[in-house]
């Protein structure tokens, strides 16, 4: 029981991090039917800004704010120069996204080198005992941030004009434009929102696992992308569900089956979902445009 609880907590913690990153994919896909392959690199860059500021002694709040700003600024620049000129084309944004991603990774390598670095954060070595279960204050922080971000997303998408505009653009971009929705501004906001969730996820990741590398832009988001597909790409609630599901599943496979089978199970599941339930847990139907 204690072992089960420990693995469940491990899985949920990883799941929240996956969910934060998955939201970035799903937001963009839900509205533009485009897989934002640069997302992983944006989250990596923002996280590195935060980590390097923490290492150089900046106050924590300033480091986090700077990371979020960096992520948002890069998202705006990418949208303006790599995505907007090719919007509407199904293939071109994928190519420009990969190109932009490589540029970001190389710039990050020039600034921070390719060495793997720790990310100092409060409470990293602390533990809390709840009966037989050992808990980290950081796990509580991860859960709290995850809940807060989900609430924020709910408020934005249901209670604000922006949310309504996002739904309008999702339903039909051209008609929304005709109705006076500022499509360009809505699209850029969607990218920025995705990037902010990504950087939040990256900071939680760095704080909890205490290890960062510039290559995590690609490898680190493989799981998040799988979570997106499992959850139902295009649905932000699916992204949360997929993230938590995948995190817990991986912890349970490691705990009760074998760590050697982790990727086999993960990617078999991905293939199974793609074959038998491509709409994911959320069962999202995204109308395809001709």
């Amino acid at each position, binding site marked *: 029981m204690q*072992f089960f609880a*420990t*693995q469940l907590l*491990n*899985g949920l*913690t*990883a799941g929240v991090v996956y969910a934060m990153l998955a939201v970035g994919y799903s937001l963009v896909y839900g509205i533009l039917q485009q897989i934002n392959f640069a997302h992983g690199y944006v989250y990596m860059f923002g996280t590195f800004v935060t980590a390097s500021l923490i290492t150089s002694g900046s106050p924590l709040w300033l480091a986090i704010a700077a990371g979020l700003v960096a992520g948002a600024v890069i998202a705006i620049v990418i949208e303006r120069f790599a995505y907007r000129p090719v919007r509407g084309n199904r293939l071109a944004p994928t190519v420009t996204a990969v190109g932009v991603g490589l540029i970001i990774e190389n710039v990050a*390598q020039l600034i921070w*080198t*390719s*060495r*793997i*670095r*720790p990310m100092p954060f409060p409470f*990293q*070595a602390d*533990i809390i005992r709840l009966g037989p279960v*050992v808990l*980290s204050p950081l796990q509580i922080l991860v859960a709290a941030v995850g809940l807060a971000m989900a609430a924020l997303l709910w408020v934005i998408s249901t209670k604000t004009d922006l949310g309504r505009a996002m739904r309008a653009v999702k339903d039909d971009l051209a008609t929304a434009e005709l109705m006076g929705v500022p499509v360009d501004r809505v699209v850029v906001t969607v990218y920025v929102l995705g990037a902010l969730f990504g950087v939040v996820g990256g900071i939680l*990741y760095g704080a909890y*696992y*205490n*290890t960062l*590398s510039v*290559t*995590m832009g690609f*490898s*680190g988001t*493989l799981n998040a992308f799988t979570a997106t597909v499992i959850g139902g790409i295009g649905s932000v609630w699916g992204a949360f569900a997929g993230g938590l599901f995948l995190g817990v599943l*991986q*912890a349970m496979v*490691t*705990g009760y089956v074998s*760590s*050697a089978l*982790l*990727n086999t199970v993960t990617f078999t599941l991905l293939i199974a979902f793609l074959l038998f339930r491509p709409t994911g847990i959320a069962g999202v139907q995204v109308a395809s445009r001709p």
Partner: protein
Amino acid sequence: MMSIVSKAALRRAIPAIASFAVASIVLPGLCGTSAFAADTDAVHIASTAPLTGSAAAYGIETMNGVHLAVEEINAAGGIGGKPIKLSEYDDQCDPTPAATAANQIISDKAVVAVVGNVCSSATLAQMPIFGRVGMPVLAATTSSPALSAKGFENFARIIPNDDIQGVASLDLGTKVLGYKRIAVLYPSDDYGQALLAIAKRAATASGAELVAAETYITGSTNDFSSVLANIAAANPDALFLAGYYADMGAAVSQSVRAFGDKHIALLANAQTQVPEYVSLAGAAAEGTWVTNVYDINNPSEQNKAFVAAYTKKFNAEPGVQAAAGYDNIYVLKQAIEENKGSTENLMPVIRATKHEGAMGTISFDKNGDNIGGSLVVLRLTGGKWVFDDESTKKLNAH
């Protein structure tokens, strides 16, 4: 006309080459600038090591050792009067770029030998390519037994292989420190699989039990919480860290939460004895035991000279990677000198070479494995790797 002749053919036909060389001197107008023109003014050596990626720290340190040796040798007049010319390639510790690097190296006809290899997976991918032209490979710290077991005729390496090293790490835990329940954390690649097999064998042989064996994917696993929970649940006395420094650093840093106040001793192999492991793992790394094939405190003349020169040049203490890179070049120099200055048919001469280097005695068996070195035991104490004389003596006595 000569450039279309493959290197393998050239090596097999030395007499023909000799007459060609004579011809090229006698009839320079016919041959133009031949590939051999470069050979006559320098000894061309290529290096392949990870200069970027997750194992970059190993590769860069190895290359520091290589650079130091090349500089010293060139300042002292080179090898038989010819300076060493080094071309560097980045294999990223990844078989795909490693194969690309190997193909680039063999297309450079001036190269006489390859040095610097750090990663076993990368080198395994390269050996068949180098084998095509009979290119001698004198690896630095690749340690997978698979490399020598495959019987490549063009292969030798500076450090004792994982069989010897892995058995020593386990023996330190079981025979010297008396631990009975051992857990292993290993990467899923060739290197990790080999170490796991060795750990199983060595644990059984010394009467201990392997209570947990957990794996991860190097370069993509950063969350070790679940595997660490498994290890904690198995109640081991000691955990054998059979992976790369960055992964082991992250895992040990996260072990504080997973292990709680359980005391589990950490046994590590040579890969972990780098400053990055200590900075990544933080306070949790304190007390880590390492068995290695090199120690900076080795009192031999060769090592003292190497440490002094290295510290002066790089303002940092050399580790096993640097020492292996350094000895790499000197073994090659000695072999070429023993081959009367010729760089033809070099591998048999390299394997017959006995060299007293910074690492200790280097000599090779019929598969190119170094069987001359002895092992040292160190312990991370106050954030520094401290030579443990008593354990070293006990380990070498077993």
